[in-house]
């Protein structure tokens, strides 16, 4: 891994660190339904994110194998290769490259209609280590029309800073409740609620805030961010899936989010899936997200040490983003490839557009009066190509 002279930045990656393990555990554990063990599979993905001056790509491989009728073992390997020249980095530092590697090991245990899952995950990067343990219980009942799941996760992060030997700690606890309900022979309803509490060093050690400074030639100077040492958030999501009169499905989703830092967010998503014959499936989706800013966020503080807590992380500002996505899958069933019950190739491409209401582009607005720089916006492409083998 090579790091090229950076002092500030990595907004994408730091938030990534803080949250990725959580999501990874959740997303994969929630891909399991009670009443049956997960299918033996090798799921491999090449992922690529390109936008806002950043390129992140790498592999993501999950292997799962059952042992007897009651146990299933799993492990995954995930890499992010990052090349960054984002607006945060360019404002106060130089472009850098970096790599993060994540591995996990998990076991699922099935007892009649109850599925218990445990997973441990480790993530390593040159100035950051994250470990996390997750446990969940999932149960089918009411004639198997209802599935309820409860999950708990605990995370321990070591946040370092290049050039310093000591590290800071950040701990996290996650509580999840999920329900899936069959409504009719053509429709499903899903409900999830999740509360996360963080405690410790929650900011990016490299990122800075800017404040008005008449003695500086550009009219402003920078100082370090300072965040509260606790954060509690709750997200509630509802989703409905409907089988159309012809063979196709449509999904609608809404999520409300609120946290103790003052951020309120709404997410809306619509997905349409349309098979063509037995082998091909097309899909299209639209997603819209909006949030308000954290109480201690400002794009430009009025003076040095203007307040105790201060942030200029654009992910804590007021903004919206939207996604337009399309995908195609090709699938082969049992008997086509020896020893493989199911083969599936999927290509998904998403276009994302971010528009900030209170985060100014100091790089593009170099010659603008301070505080009048253009508002920042950028777009990104996300590509996912995966091969899934079930055996």
């Amino acid at each position, binding site marked *: 891994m090579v790091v090229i002279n950076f002092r500030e930045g990595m907004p994408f990656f730091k938030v990534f660190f803080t949250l990725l393990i959580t999501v990874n555990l959740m997303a994969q554990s929630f891909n399991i339904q009670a009443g049956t063990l997960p299918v033996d599979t090798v799921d491999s993905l090449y992922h690529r994110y390109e936008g806002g001056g950043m390129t992140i790509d790498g592999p993501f491989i999950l292997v799962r194998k059952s042992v007897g009728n009651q146990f299933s073992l799993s492990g995954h390997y995930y890499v992010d290769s990052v090349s960054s020249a984002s607006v945060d980095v360019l404002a106060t530092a130089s472009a850098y490259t970096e790599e993060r590697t994540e591995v996990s090991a998990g076991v699922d245990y099935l007892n009649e209609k109850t599925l218990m899952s445990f997973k441990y995950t480790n993530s390593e990067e040159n100035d950051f280590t994250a470990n996390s343990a997750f446990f969940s219980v999932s149960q089918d009942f009411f004639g198997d*029309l209802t599935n309820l799941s409860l999950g708990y996760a605990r995370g321990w992060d070591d946040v370092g800073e290049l050039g310093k030997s000591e590290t800071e700690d950040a701990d996290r606890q996650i509580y999840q409740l999920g329900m899936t309900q069959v409504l009719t022979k053509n429709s*499903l309803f899903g409900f999830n609620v999740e509360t996360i509490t963080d405690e410790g060093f929650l900011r990016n050690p490299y990122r800075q805030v800017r404040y008005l400074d008449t003695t500086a030639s550009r009219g402003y100077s920078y100082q370090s961010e300072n965040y509260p040492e606790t954060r509690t958030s709750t997200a509630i999501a509802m989703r409905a899936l409907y089988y159309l009169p012809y063979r196709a499905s449509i999904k609608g989703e809404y999520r409300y*989010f609120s946290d103790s830092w003052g951020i309120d967010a709404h997410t809306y998503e619509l997905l349409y899936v349309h098979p063509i014959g037995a082998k091909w499936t097309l899909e299209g989706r639209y997603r819209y997200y909006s949030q308000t800013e954290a109480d201690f966020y400002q794009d430009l503080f009025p003076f040095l040490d203007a307040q105790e807590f201060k942030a200029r992380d654009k992910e804590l500002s007021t903004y919206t983003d939207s996604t337009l996505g399309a995908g195609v899958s090709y699938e082969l069933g049992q008997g086509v490839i020896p020893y493989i019950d199911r083969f599936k190739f999927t290509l998904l491409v998403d276009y994302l557009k971010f528009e900030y209401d209170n985060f100014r582009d100091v790089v593009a607005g170099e010659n603008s009066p301070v505080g009048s720089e253009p508002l920042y916006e950028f777009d990104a492409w996300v590509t996912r190509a995966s091969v899934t083998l079930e055996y």
Partner: protein
Amino acid sequence: MKAYLLLTILLASLVGMSGCADLKPWVKPYERSNLADPIMSLGRHGVAGSYVHHVYQAREGARGAEGGAGGGCGCN
């Protein structure tokens, strides 16, 4: 607070529903063929689905309740 209020209402509704002793599963196993179709899964894309949640969590202030799975026929 809005989140907790909404949660309380939903949980209260669930508890209330549990009092309906005569409520029986209304979709029979032989009526679940459409629900069993893979296009009715809430998490069709495996690790590719997990990854896109990562992208959003890294880019957005909100986090959690991504769900992304379940669905299907409930006929295990």
